[in-house]
Structure formats: C-alpha cells, structure tokens
C-alpha cells in the first residue's frame, strides 16, 4: 500500500474510532475539532513522524505536542492507529480516573508528550524542544505542534510566533487547524477575524504553507517541503469543523456535545457509504 492509501485508510479508521468512543463514553466530547484534524494527524502518524511504537521513549523520536488540547479525539485515535495505545486502553476514554480524558495528560508510555488543556502553551514548549534538539550533538529530532485557530486568540501564541524565527528553529513545524469556529456559536471571523492567517505568520518570518487540511496530497507536500534554512515551518491547514459527518460539518453544536445512539448510527452509516 502506498503512503497516500495508508493515510487515507488511517483517516477513515480514526473517524470511525472517534464516533465509537464518543458514543461509548456517553459524555459530551469535542467532536467538531477532533474531526477537523483527522487528515493532519493521519498524515503525521502514518507518514511524517519518526517514532517507534514499541519504544515510545526512543530519544530520537519526533516530538508531537497537541497544543489545542481539546482535540484528544483526533489524537487518541491516531495513537491507537499508530500502535501506541491498545484498544483496551482506548476504551477507557472518559472513564473515572482514566489516563485518557478530555485533554492530554503527559504519559510517554502512551506516546503523549505533554499535558495540555490550557490553550496557548504548546508552541512555547515546542520551541524549547526544538532548541534542545539543535543544541544536542548526538540526537536530532523535530518538534511538531498542532494549534487551533481559536487558540490563536491567546497572546502567548504570538509570543512564541515572534521567538521561533529569531532562534532559527528550522526543526520546528507548527500546524494550525484553521476550522474557523471556536467555542461560541458565532463564527471566528466575527470574534477575532484572522483573515489571511498565513500572511500574518509569514510577516513574522515563518516559512508558511497554506493548504486544504483535508487534502492528503497537499498536506504531504507541505510537510515534506524542504526546510528553509533558519526558518520554522507553519502549515495553515484550512479545515472544516466536524469534517466527514454531514450534520456536524460547520455546525458548532458539535463543538462539545453528546453523541446519542440515533446520531451515532446516522454518522457511522455516512462513513460506511
């Protein structure tokens, strides 16, 4: 199977698993933002990231940080697909005292690099990781950080955006899941209108790729594009919140909601079409 097909089938598997676990948990879950990031995560975990699922502590692994911490559905399903977490572990999602809750809890045994949930912090950590890798004589790895566009309302994101080019971190790759909806029902453009987000990052000195975040070919091209020396890479992935399930797409009722049996069956039927 070529990598395109592998990514495509991982994405489908992840969407199914996202629906399964949301329904099984019987709790409200961040479905919209979990579904918008699926192709990004599948591309990373099926093709781009360097890792060893048998040895999650492998020092040369690439580091992935989920800065938009509420995107756990798209994260845990990728870790399941990539063999970091077992089906049994996956099914503990939102069970009392589970390792897998609504935001990541640092647990390298499960491939989870950091605890998140407070927005606007992951890119700073990514800078520290990328700098440490640059400094290291014997091991080189890359730092990947996935942010949400709503998260970019946080001032601390821009502190990090300013610093990374200054430190010439061409081993740092940030991705913004630009789904254009955040917590409230109001479209993001009516809250903080980022407009041309790619141009903004570019003006800060990033090497920017503006892509369709559900187009695997475009994602691969952006990830594989040769690093511009001394520049961190930013991939603005234009996505659809709730992608893949028609009644969730661009419908912010699914930002955080309970998947009932009837809705679950409807959603699964759509995937199987």
């Amino acid at each position, binding site marked *: 199977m070529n990598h395109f097909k592998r990514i495509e089938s991982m994405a489908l598997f992840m969407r199914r698993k996202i629906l399964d676990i949301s329904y099984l948990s019987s709790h409200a879950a961040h479905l919209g933002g979990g579904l918008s990031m699926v192709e990004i995560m599948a591309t990373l975990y099926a093709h781009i990231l360097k890792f060893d699922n048998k040895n999650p502590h492998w020092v040369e692994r690439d580091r992935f940080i989920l800065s938009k911490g509420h995107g756990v559905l798209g994260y845990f399903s990728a870790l399941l697909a990539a063999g970091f977490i077992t089906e049994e572990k996956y099914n503990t999602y939102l069970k009392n005292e589970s390792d897998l809750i609504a935001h990541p809890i640092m647990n390298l045994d499960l491939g989870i690099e*950091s605890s998140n949930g407070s927005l606007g*912090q992951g890119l*700073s*950590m990514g*800078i*520290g*990781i990328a*700098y440490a890798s640059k400094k290291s004589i014997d091991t080189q790895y890359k730092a990947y950080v996935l942010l949400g566009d709503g998260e970019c309302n946080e001032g*601390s994101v821009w502190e990090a955006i300013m610093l990374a080019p200054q430190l010439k971190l061409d081993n740092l790759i940030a991705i913004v899941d630009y789904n254009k909806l955040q917590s409230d029902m109001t479209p993001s453009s009516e809250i903080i209108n980022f407009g041309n987000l790619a141009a903004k990052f570019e003006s800060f000195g990033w090497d920017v790729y503006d892509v369709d975040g559900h187009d695997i070919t475009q994602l691969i091209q952006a990830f594989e594009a040769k690093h511009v020396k001394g520049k961190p890479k930013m991939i603005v992935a234009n996505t659809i919140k709730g992608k893949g399930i028609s009644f969730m797409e661009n419908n912010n009722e699914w930002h955080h909601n309970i998947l009932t049996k009837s809705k679950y069956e409807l959603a699964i039927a759509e995937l199987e079409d």
Partner: protein
Amino acid sequence: MLSAGEKNPKLMVVSGDLGDSSGLARFKNTFPDRFINIGIAEQNMIGVAAGLAKEGHNVFATSFAPFITLRSGEQIRMNLGYMELNVKAVAIGSGISMAFLGNSHYGLEDTAIMRSIPNLTIVCPADCSEIVKTVHAAAEFKGPMYIRLTGAVGNPPVYTEEYDFEIGKSITLREGSDITIFAIGSMVYESLEAAKVLDSVGISSRVVNMHTLKPCDYKAIDRAISSSKAIITVEEHSVIGGLGSVIAEYKTQFSKSPAHLIIGLPDKFGKTAEYKFLLEKYRLVGNKIATDIQNFVKNL
C-alpha cells in the same frame, strides 16, 4: 550561576529580557548557547523553559516576582506543577525592594500563589551567601522550584562563616527559651537583630531561618509548639499566604499550641518610597520587630 553552570553542563538559563539586571551577563558570555533572552514575554519564557527541561535540561528562568509568578502563573501551574518539569523559576527583587518602581514590580503575593500549586519546592534564601548555596543546590535538584529573592544590594550578611545548607531543612541560628521566631529571606537578618533587643528586655528568642517554605520543615515547628510561649513569623511578603500562613495552617490542628504573631506586609498596595523607608514604615526592621513582639508577648 556561572560556577553552577560550569559544574552542570545541562544547566540552561532563560530570561524575560532581564539577563543583565539579574546579573547573568557573565553566564551569557561564557555559555552563549545555554542562555536565551526570550524577550519581554514571560508566559513564553516558562513554556520554552519547560520544553528545554523536557529534553533533559535543568532550566533557570528569571524575571521580577510579579511577572514570573502572576503573568505566567498558569504556565507555571501546567509546566512546573502539573508536568513537574525541571524548571527553576527565579524571582528577582521580590518583596518591596523595587522601591520607586512601585507596586507593579513588588512581590507581595507571589509566595501565596506559588505555594498553592502542587509539586513546587519553594526556597527563599536569607542573604547573598545563601543565594549562592541555593543556586548550587537547585542546580543539583531535579524538579520544579520557585526561588524567591528578597533584599537589596548592600544588605548585611546573616552568615559570616561556612555552614551546611540543605533544601527542606531549616536552620536554627540561635537558641532561646521563651519564644521562637521563624523568619525567611531578608527578614532573617532583621529577626536576629530583634532577638538581640529582646534579650535586653528579658525575652529569650530562638531564631529559625525557614529558607525552604515548601516542603516545610514541620519538625522545627513541632519543636516550637512544644517549647515556646509564642511563635512569631517574619517575612517580606503579604501577611496572607506566606510563611505566617504555612505555620498557622499547620499548628491549628493542635489543641494546645502557642499564640502566633504574623509579621509581614499589610494586605494593600501602599505608597511607594525608598526600600529602607518602607521597611521602617511596615515595621520590618529589627528594633520595631522587637517592640511588636514584646507587646504581643506581654499581653499573652
């Protein structure tokens, strides 16, 4: 910092554009790739420090007390508290030593905030020599820490001879049979001065340097509870949430424990003045501390 850096190749320093004010110029020049000026962006500074720490470095992050504790409080909570990453957050010029820079720069409530975050060790050295010992101990210490620096250049030393310093272990500087004074940071020296005055009026005071606020040396408090008529705490911090609170929270479980006087900064944003003027005004100088203790003890 420089000698700690020489001994520990994994030690790094990040600063929120206060490297020179923090006396880090020599470190920066000696180890240019182990020092990052993050810019005036404390939240990012703590996050970057956390990323470096995650990759095996022991990272000292410096800024003024309110900026490092309050501005980036949530970054400290997530990265140092929740994830227990090996970062030493260092507050320069805490308390009121920033004088005319004003309340915006004072560290009034920093300890209260930091000590309520799980997993942080909190150290507040008493003088220059103890700062050196703290830095060396922190360079060897694996885990998150808040280091609170008080006092100003030219403050008289508490220690004139070599002594043993261990994180978490208080130091009894003098023995006394009537009362125990627990002091921290800049107030250790002033409490020793107070004890001398109290001697002259017939009150014998033990003075304990509680340099580590968390984990607290509860044995020293137990000893005071069982042997002293009164416990006094003295700190250059708000009377809310600092050393006084730590000891009060502990001793409240005992039905018989001595009365406790909390001496510290009032719960207010006061007017700004020279450091010495403010210490006098807030009665945080030896002779005034002694008078207040004397009045307190007299009425017991």
